[in-house]
């Protein structure tokens, strides 16, 4: 980037509006500012009676300004103000050594490891299922209803069952969490890849037939490359879901570590600020994962001649 783009050397308001940096970031910035403003208003409204009741219980005289400032830094607010969440987030990320039990980095890493393993297992399972479905009409009829049924059971109800059963089999810690995460995230991948594997043009399939290509050659040279856009689209959906799966799996286990554990203890003790900063950590984690997949997608697309 050149210095002139940063310096925003401008002559007229139109030029400002057309500046590439402004064009790109102004809409996002506007939205963020609007959300923050609404949030502050909501924090004032929601914490108002809480703070006022506190003053009245202690029988101290108070002014409206006192209550107003009280809503901004309550210890256990109904809705923490954005700056409180930001402070708690940065404090728990940078304020402790990364593997201290109070460090959010540590908890995020615990959840991340279960997420990644679950994502890997789910992606493999989803792709294998899609392959089976595409290559056999019988399997399509017999598997598809089960796949859809599997997603109709709420995972919050299933997770404890999984944990108990897998625990009885001697599996503890990372693996049960990953399996729950995989159970959730295989679904979009299976559905997306069935679509992807059947996406080649009929002419391309007929060409393969005129060359008497084997089914394996049709898969590797046509169906697989044709399904790549579908793969990345479903991977992006799946990685978010697999993070949710890992967090949900941490709730019923009473896990000591992980974003789920932070959420649980935060809600037990009314630590709303801790709760929100754990949520922010989850959001950062999932946008990071999606961003990473987006980068890989772009690199692959460039090699495959995208324009």
């Amino acid at each position, binding site marked *: 980037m050149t210095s002139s783009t940063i310096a925003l050397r401008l002559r007229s308001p139109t030029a400002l509006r057309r500046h590439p940096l402004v064009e790109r970031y102004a809409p996002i910035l506007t939205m963020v500012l609007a959300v923050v403003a609404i949030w502050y208003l909501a924090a004032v409204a929601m914490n108002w009676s809480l703070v006022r009741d506190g003053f009245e219980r202690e029988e101290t005289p108070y002014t409206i300004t006192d209550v107003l400032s009280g809503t901004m830094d309550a210890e256990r607010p109904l809705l923490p103000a954005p700056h409180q969440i930001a402070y708690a987030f940065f404090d728990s990320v940078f304020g402790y050594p990364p593997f201290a039990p109070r460090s959010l980095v540590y908890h995020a890493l615990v959840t991340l490891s279960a997420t990644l393993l679950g994502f890997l297992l789910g992606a493999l399972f989803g792709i294998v299922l899609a392959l089976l479905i595409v290559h056999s009409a019988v399997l399509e009829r017999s598997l598809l209803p089960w796949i859809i049924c599997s997603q109709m059971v709420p995972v919050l109800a299933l997770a404890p069952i999984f944990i108990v059963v897998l625990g009885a089999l001697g599996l503890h810690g990372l693996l049960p969490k990953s399996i729950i995460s995989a159970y959730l995230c295989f679904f979009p991948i299976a559905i997306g890849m069935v679509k992807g594997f059947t996406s080649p*043009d009929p*002419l*391309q399939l*007929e*060409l*393969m*037939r*005129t*060359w*008497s*290509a084997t089914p394996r*050659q049709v898969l590797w*040279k*046509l169906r697989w*490359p*044709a399904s*790549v856009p579908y793969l990345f689209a479903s991977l992006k959906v799946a990685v978010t879901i697999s993070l949710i799966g890992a967090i949900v799996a941490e709730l019923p286990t009473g896990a000591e570590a992980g974003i789920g554990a932070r959420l649980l203890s935060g809600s037990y003790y009314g630590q709303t600020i801790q709760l929100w900063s754990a949520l922010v950590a989850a959001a950062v984690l999932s946008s990071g994962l999606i961003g990473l997949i987006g980068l890989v997608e772009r690199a692959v697309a460039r090699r*495959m*001649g995208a*324009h």
Partner: protein
Amino acid sequence: MPKPSLPTPTAPAATDRAEPAASSAPPLNSPLPQISSDAAQKTSARRLVVDAQNISLTFETADGRVEALSNVSLQVAEGEFVSFIGPSGCGKTTMLRVIADLQQPSSGTLLVNGMSAEEARLARSYGYVFQAPALFPWRTIEKNLKLPLEIMGYSEIEQQQRVERYLSMVNLTGFERKFPWQLSGGMQQRVSIARALSFDPALLLMDEPFGALDEIVRDHLNAQLLQLWKSTGKTVLFVTHSIPEAVFLSTKIVVMSPRPGRIIDIIECDFPVDRSPDVRETPEFLKVAQRVRNGLRAGHSYDE
């Protein structure tokens, strides 16, 4: 998989069927094709690449039975350039697909290169060019040409040599590393022709390969195709809508008519092999074109 049509012992030999008494100008509208006597002699002298007898193909649709092909018999000798012409629904594309074993006939016998259509396909006897280029968008031009070669197990060196040879044959040297979207429609279609030629099949099946291109590009490609046919000596089966295209390119024109799809005339067309585009102005050319037009009109007369 449907059973391939195998020749039956009772099927008459190719030469028996073309009657010597047949007139050199077969009557229009005759349900069975008739091949002129000199054509029959030419045909019997050379090896038959396609020998189709009484091919019929019907399929059920929501509106009832459709006779896509009805009793079609056709013989194509090695090195011929045969055009199929006729209005939509006359079965010309279906006939090509049957020869390519992309569709199976309901009845009749069919030999391609002396084998059943399925055996011929499995032996990779033909190259097929569709109306759309159907290139693989994620492969460069070079890689697109290599695709059939990879599938057929050619060595790396052989693949590279063939890419060079066939790209230069369609005048596209220098485009190896481009992706299909970087080429015009006409260039893409030339790539698809080079791809069909790349494994050197003796038979080339072309289904309206230039149908989606404009007139100027089409004329240009026709001249190139003629050149290519002359230099390679391949047998070409060519489906088209265009009378001038058919007359300009062919040694034999098969005029077809719809409902049911059938052959109504087979016209021999013996312009010199190295014909120039100027041949289109000659009286002989116009005479053949007129006969094709008459055939098409006759085929149409009773549904309007």
